[in-house]
């Protein structure tokens, strides 16, 4: 249904979210919160406002830098967002409830980091597909419930033994991957995805909110200080963090998987590729479509890449 409103040359993930809404699958929602954190998303705000019937739609104006001025602007923007929520849903949001939410979310982040630690082992105690699905489920489950489940999971997985030897240890970098199929292809071809730099992976949870500071200040700071997304000015910082992760998780290669038309990632990708290669890693850069068209060709290239690394080592 989105085809009636969306051009061919736009992000297929944004298109898919919008399509799901038009089909009525999100009719249970009371609102949609957008951000200008990329050109696709910023412009999609117009389509959501004009073509969906959600009662509440709000855009959070997100800075692209992390200066003192940007911090102040973003804090004030979060105050405006809070007030807008309070008005729309006639519910006050107290500092106390923000602190409580911060605590619960931080716990989730800390637990996810523990999950990721299990991937540093050789062999990794979790497959890349499992790890991705764990993070994806965090985004969809009430956090208290997810924390409880993560506790159980850590207990079970830590006791895993007699695992088969790892395949080629890989880091996957990119934007959104909300379907584990891509990683399944990588792991079926003899790779083991043990680390990631994804919006739906480590970048989602890696950094905590300072629970001692004033809540909205701390939240504003966390979102600007976190591992940067390529839509920010801080690309160099991101490259460093990815390089560190590659080292810490002891990977042999990296696959950069960028959704087509994700401009900011497409500008960063050649630079990140060069950085990773300069540290001796093999890197494959691929673009993919959310609808998984052209998947056979991707599979062939992934298989050839993994064979190449195996041949070298």
């Amino acid at each position, binding site marked *: 249904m989105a085809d009636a409103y969306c051009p061919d040359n*736009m*992000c297929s993930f944004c298109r898919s979210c919008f399509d799901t809404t038009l089909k009525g699958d999100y009719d249970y929602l009371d609102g949609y919160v957008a951000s200008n954190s990329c050109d696709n998303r910023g412009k999609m705000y*117009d389509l959501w406002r004009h073509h969906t019937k959600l009662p509440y739609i709000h*855009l959070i104006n997100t800075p692209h830098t992390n200066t003192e001025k940007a911090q102040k602007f973003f804090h004030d923007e979060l105050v405006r967002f809070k007030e807008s929520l309070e008005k729309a849903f006639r519910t006050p949001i107290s500092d106390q409830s923000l602190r409580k939410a911060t605590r619960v979310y931080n716990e989730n982040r800390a637990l996810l980091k523990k999950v990721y630690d299990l991937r540093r082992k050789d062999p990794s105690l979790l497959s890349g597909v499992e790890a991705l699905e764990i993070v994806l489920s965090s985004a969809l489950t009430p956090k208290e419930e997810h924390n409880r489940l993560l506790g159980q999971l850590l207990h079970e997985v830590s006791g895993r033994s007699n695992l088969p030897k790892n395949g080629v240890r890989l880091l996957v970098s990119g934007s959104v991957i909300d379907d584990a199929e891509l990683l399944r292809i990588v792991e079926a071809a003899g790779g083991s995805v043990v680390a990631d730099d994804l919006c739906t992976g480590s970048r989602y949870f890696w950094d905590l909110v300072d629970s001692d500071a004033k809540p909205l200040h701390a939240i504003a700071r966390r979102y600007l200080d976190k591992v940067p997304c390529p839509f920010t000015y801080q690309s160099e910082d991101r490259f460093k963090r990815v390089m560190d992760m590659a080292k810490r998780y002891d990977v042999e290669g990296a696959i950069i998987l960028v959704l087509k038309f994700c*401009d900011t990632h497409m500008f960063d990708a050649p630079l990140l590729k060069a950085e990773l290669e300069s540290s001796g890693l093999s890197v494959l850069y691929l673009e993919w479509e959310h609808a998984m068209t052209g998947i056979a060709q991707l599979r062939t290239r992934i298989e050839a890449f993994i064979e190449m690394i195996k041949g070298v080592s």
Partner: protein
Amino acid sequence: MSATETMRRLQTTRGFYGNYIKKFYADAHKAKEEKRPVAWVASTFPVEMLQAIDVIPVWPENYASVCAARQVSVRLCEAAERENFSRDLCSYARCVLGSIFGEKDLPEGGMPKPDFLLASTGACDTHFKWFQVASRRLKRPLFLLDIPYDTTGSELEGYQVRHYVAQLEGLVSFLEEQTGRKFEMNRLKEVERLSDRTSKLWLEIQDCRKAIPTPMGARDAFSAVFFMLCVPGTEMAVEFYRRLRDELKERVENKIGVIEDERYRLIWDNLPMWFNLRFFDYLNSLGAVIVAETFSHVWAGNLDISKPLESLARKYLPNFANAVAERRIDLILRVVREWSVDGVILPTNWGCRMMSIGMTILKNTVHERLGVPSLIIDVDSSDWRSYNEAHVKTQVEAFIEMLSKRNQREA
């Protein structure tokens, strides 16, 4: 009659490339040789700030359009693609990056190497990401004016203006640091006075195009907009626009149109195919003329020199690329009404999300409110591999035929 014969070119814009564009690049190269500071600047950046501290602005976007007009843009895009920059990225970006990746035989000798680069989030993220790549490659610093997205589409919010001004204050420090000079507010006011004059003349020029028949079409407008975009606060800009306005006024008085038999008055949204400006002659040959471009309307803005920084915020923040759709819709609705428009051409741009997403909203709104039809066509500003001329011409001819039937019905 051939397309070019249909069209009456203006005196003022004759030889524009040789007289102004070539000179602009030659002057910039000369400035570089004389060790005067040169900056690469992205559009929607408040260039008056640079002029006030005697930094020479060079515009990569303008350079990409030059490369496209000279038919070398695809070669440069391919050079960027060889370095893994995706073919789906903005063709301006690929073209300019290609020009710094060691390609030879560049138009106007390429752009002089910058002392620093200046970008803004005020049009798109692509701007500053591309400048970031250039900054890294050229080992020159990049300053980013990080400005808010215009969420109202009408009156700006006070906090948005205040944040813009705070960003300008950061820019002042950056410019002083880079040039070793002191930024003088009085000098900025002088530049703004000229820039304001430039804007007013440019808007008068647009007003002249309301006349039936219209005295100027898109080909001349897309050349002449150069001054508004690149060097607004200069005597040269004021002088050029004064001459252009006078020529148009004379045409209006004598009822001389840019084409002899004006039948369809159209708006052209966004950018042209710089590699094929003859497309406008082709439109003329069908009896159609572009009476306004949204691109021409977006750059002018009044400057109140009693508030030099705030007025720059008010001039540059409300750019429709950095705003909710309402700002672009309101502009198009106003132009349709005041310029007696029969139809709107809405070109998408393969590498540009800002210009491609939401076209249906524009098309539907203009039709619902004013009963005026629009045509969405898929083009690209500089990469002709993403443009199918035969297909676009078929669409345009069908659109014109539809307009012709409407005119007959109304008559």
